[in-house]
């Protein structure tokens, strides 16, 4: 029992190590550092030397100070936590609905004919256009924010999943059918695996759209989250705080995309041919 527990932890640590190496590898590569450090230096010194107006473009050190202040005095981590919580909830609901519906529509013509036109009519509505009606329906709390994130992430995941499932190589289906595969087995062992790369790709697009909607949702309602901090900073003209918020959003997006890339790497080992 104990031995198994340690083994599990060790495995988890090893995977986390791989993940970090993969994720951070591109940022801490020698090639990128030689570009990144000069950029940071320019950011620091151009405003200081008065090349660009300091009041509008705060130097790096000012932004860093603002970051520290937000972190220690204004509960930045709590705000990040709230934003992530809403985001993951909205994205989770989108993934949990869009992928199954996409699979069903890709698998079966009868379902596709009944469901697809509805989504095709609704999808072109730009997600931000949902804001007013959502506020009226749900108020400005968590349900409204979650719903907006869900709306942003849902369609890209749905359509890409559907398309990938529909494009499954008929040879593989035929081959499994001759051996006796039921439709459920085909879905679980053929369609999904054939489409896995495209499905993960669709979730990445969903993450990008969901983040857009997260910021919009928090700007319109609620008292917490990065989007809220951003609007508040605008009202008090705190440019360094805005920059910190933008950077935090950037890092969150980057991190989520890296997680998905890692999942893709793990799930599609079979694609790495030699």
């Amino acid at each position, binding site marked *: 029992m104990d031995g198994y527990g340690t083994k599990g932890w060790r495995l988890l640590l090893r995977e986390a190590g791989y993940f970090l190496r993969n994720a951070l590898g591109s940022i801490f590569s020698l090639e990128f550092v030689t570009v990144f450090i000069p950029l940071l230096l320019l950011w620091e010194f151009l405003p200081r030397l008065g090349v660009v107006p300091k009041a509008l473009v705060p130097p790096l050190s000012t932004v860093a100070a603002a970051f520290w202040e937000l972190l220690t005095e204004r509960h930045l981590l709590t705000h990040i936590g709230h934003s992530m919580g809403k985001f993951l909830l909205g994205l989770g609901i989108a993934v949990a609905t869009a992928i199954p519906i996409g699979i069903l529509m890709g698998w079966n013509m009868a379902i596709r004919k009944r469901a697809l036109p509805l989504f095709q009519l609704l999808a072109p509505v730009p997600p931000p256009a949902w804001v007013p009606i959502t506020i009226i329906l749900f108020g400005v709390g968590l349900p409204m924010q979650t719903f907006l994130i869900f709306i942003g992430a849902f369609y890209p995941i749905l359509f890409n999943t559907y398309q990938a499932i529909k494009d499954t190589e008929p040879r593989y289906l035929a081959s499994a059918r001759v051996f006796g595969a039921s439709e459920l087995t085909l879905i679980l062992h053929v369609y999904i695996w054939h489409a896995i790369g495209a499905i993960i790709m669709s979730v990445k697009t969903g993450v990008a759209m969901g983040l857009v909607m997260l910021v919009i949702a928090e700007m319109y309602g609620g008292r917490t989250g990065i989007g809220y901090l951003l609007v508040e900073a605008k009202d008090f003209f705190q440019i360094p705080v805005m920059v910190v918020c933008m950077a935090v959003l950037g890092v969150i997006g980057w991190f989520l995309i890296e997680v998905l890339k890692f999942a893709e790497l793990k799930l599609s080992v079979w694609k790495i041919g*030699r």
Partner: protein
Amino acid sequence: MIEARGITKFFSIVNDDRTADGLTAVLSVSIGIGAGKIVSILGPSGCGKSTFLEILAGLQAPTEGKVLIDGVTVLEPLPSTRREMEEYRRKYQFLSPLANGMFRDRPKHDIAMIFQDYAVFPWMTVLQNVTFALKLRGVARAERASRAMPFLKNVGLGDSLSKYPSQLSGGMRQRLALARALAVEPRIILMDEPFAAVDTITRERLQDDLLRLWNATGITIVLVTHDTDEAVYLSDEVIVFSPPPGSVRNVFPVASPRPRRRSDPEHADLKGRIEALFKYDIDHESEYSI
């Protein structure tokens, strides 16, 4: 016993200039393949051999005619009148006529098929490809690997169990497809050019393995090939397809007793006749196709 009665397959196609067109891939083929026989289908490429084999397997519905396996119709032909069409649409609205059912894995006929492009699953390892096929045939989980192993060893893949198909050569993939088809121990095995991508030595070994298995089990084998040597060496009967649209050009029984020798002079004579027929057809085909 496999019986094909007047099988015709017509495809609606779109030409390069976007006009609609039709293509007759198989034209009125009627053959009977006795249980426990090895029958080869030989013909120039594009003459509908693969299409015909898929019709035998129940993967494509014929436009006309039907296939019976031990008296059971494999797939009903496609509807031709408007009323039949409506009925067909309603009947298969939710589940394709090819489906084996919604939840339960069970083949309609005890057939295994080897596709021309192997169709092994790239997301499964060598071993998983075979155990998956066994799972579909209802073999208990605990037995699958031990059932799969001898067949994989036999085709020389015993050391590549955890490799993915993308890590295998074309010939190894083909051997995997062969092992997978044999492992389910079907009563009928349909093979679409199964030895085309392997080297001569391996090909001869695999052919002999197949014959040994056939001897031991008495399965029915339908083999599509364009290799006359192979057809004559393996078969009880060689069915020669004409150039497109594919129809039966000639049927040559191979009478020589088994076990056979590859260098049997009787075979040389038969091969000569088949090849002469081929050459004649191909020379004359180019006349009308220009």
